[in-house]
């Protein structure tokens, strides 16, 4: 019981000191939370979604709380890859923590352009591809909800970069296991899931959607059961590592994902409620392993026994 259990995991050739990362868009570019804890403690930092060009985002309201969750429609506001590399990456390079650049585009070309820029930068260890955004060249269909469109864009990105490529799956699909398989076949080194579930909240007095963007993405504890189920389905469908995301608020939640098959987890909305929650989760994992007498986190990953 005295021995410190191993928390490190390998994903796509990278070693993470522990399996807990930040979820894109909930941790800025890391600076904001460095006041609250030592970013060296993180398994990885996944930064706010980047595009080739800066993006303004949506008008407000951009966020609204819902029961045990929140909707957001930030509209992917970001400073663009160039400014990120110049202004934010130097800060992140100080830490002994892998940096994962989340990125997106509204056309295949824009994805490729973003990746080209990211690939030549120093200090980016992996890239995470957000495909939950519309394709302006194909009637604004969401990349991540159509297998063909998704295959196309993942293939294009794969060709462009040697960086470990994580494809972040959308939950707004019929068969997420199949979508994961498509990503795997198109060259993804890992998949992460879930992104937010599309939702809406209505102001009944004004009889308008509360969010300026009408619809938004649901995150937080409310979606955890859906996320765990999807992670489990994806783990059965693919051979590449899976990063579990969705409503993780504490170590026990993280353990649900790990046991269901995730090699690592990312924590999003919980950061807003407790800016140092990730530190607590990492500590909690260690405590759990000790109490249950495991010496290595890899012993519990994918250890789920199915009821028959």
């Amino acid at each position, binding site marked *: 019981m005295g021995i410190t259990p191993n928390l490190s995991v390998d994903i796509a050739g990278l070693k993470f000191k522990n399996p807990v990362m930040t979820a894109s868009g909930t941790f800025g570019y890391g600076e*904001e939370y460095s006041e*609250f804890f030592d970013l060296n403690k993180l398994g990885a930092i996944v930064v706010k979604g980047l595009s080739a060009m800066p993006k*303004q985002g949506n008008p*407000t309201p951009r966020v609204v709380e819902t029961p045990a969750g929140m909707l957001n429609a930030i509209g992917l506001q970001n400073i663009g890859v160039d400014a990120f590399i110049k202004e934010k990456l130097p800060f992140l390079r100080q830490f002994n923590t892998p940096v994962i650049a989340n990125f997106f585009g509204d056309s295949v070309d824009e994805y490729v352009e973003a990746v080209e820029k990211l690939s030549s930068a120093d200090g980016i260890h992996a890239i995470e591809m957000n495909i939950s955004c519309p394709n302006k060249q194909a009637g604004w269909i969401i990349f991540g909800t159509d297998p063909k469109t998704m295959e196309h864009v993942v293939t294009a990105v794969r060709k462009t970069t040697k960086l470990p490529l994580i494809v972040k799956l959308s939950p707004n699909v019929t068969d997420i296991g199949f979508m994961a398989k498509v990503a795997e076949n198109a060259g993804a080194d890992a998949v992460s899931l879930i992104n937010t579930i599309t939702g809406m909240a209505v102001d009944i007095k004004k009889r308008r959607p509360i969010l300026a963007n009408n619809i938004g993405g649901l995150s937080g504890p*409310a979606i955890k059961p859906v996320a765990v189920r999807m992670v489990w389905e994806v783990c059965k469908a693919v051979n590449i590592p899976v990063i579990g995301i969705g409503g993780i608020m504490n170590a026990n939640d993280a353990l649900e994902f790990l046991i269901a098959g995730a090699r690592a987890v990312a924590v999003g909305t919980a950061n807003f409620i407790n800016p140092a929650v990730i530190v607590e989760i990492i*500590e909690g994992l260690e405590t759990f392993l000790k109490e249950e007498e495991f010496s290595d986190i890899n012993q519990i990953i994918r250890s789920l026994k199915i009821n028959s």
Partner: protein
Amino acid sequence: MKSSRSALSNKYFKADVIGNISLNEHVKLLSLSPLSVVKIPEPGQFFMLQAGSTYDPLLKRPFSIFGYEDNMLKFLYRIRGKGTQAIAGLKNGDTINLIGPLGNCYPEPQGDFIAVAGGIGIASLLPFLKRFKNRAYFFCGARNKKELVMFNETRVLSKEVFIATDDGSEGQKGFVTEILNDSLLVTRYSLPIYACGPNPMLKELAGIAADKGIKCYVSLEEHMACGVGACLGCVIKTVSGYKRVCKEGSVFDIKDIIWE
């Protein structure tokens, strides 16, 4: 959501409730005693307060620092929805966690100034009046006499107090911006304005400030998720693009704001 000690810092900390008293039907005053050393807040800054102890409500709620003396933090708040209801239910001895101080603060005034509070906006301005005692002409708007809080305090701290209520039950009947607009302080002396209150009031002020060419700083409100600048949820439109109320604000130079 309890927090382990290792997660705590001087900006994320626990505090014991040592008072939570009603000032009127809707407004309460919460007094907290932090369990660790806290960064000293400046007038205009705010904290994110835990609301309830489960996932519903989920997010913390932003409140301006109202008082910070003897290592005690005070918040003056109006009960609105489920978050403020949960906070209103806090009893002495309960412990909550909070993040802060956050955001920027009111810039230091040169000489005398005008302060304008609408409704619960007084919460943000009172510590500012206290810091610059006897230099404020204080304009205060409320729905009616009952809703006026901190009446005596503001009188002691200000050079002069002007009151407007919607129904005329105290001071002048009408909007606070109306009495301000006619005031010599504005028309003749062009004193700078510091304001906090509902958006319609601030929009009016924007017009007055532009008209009269006087400086005006306002503390804005937006729905917040993180409070620390990470989520980009709380932006407002300014002449130089979207700015985060929680980080670049909540205090802005009113001439930079683009009102919808």
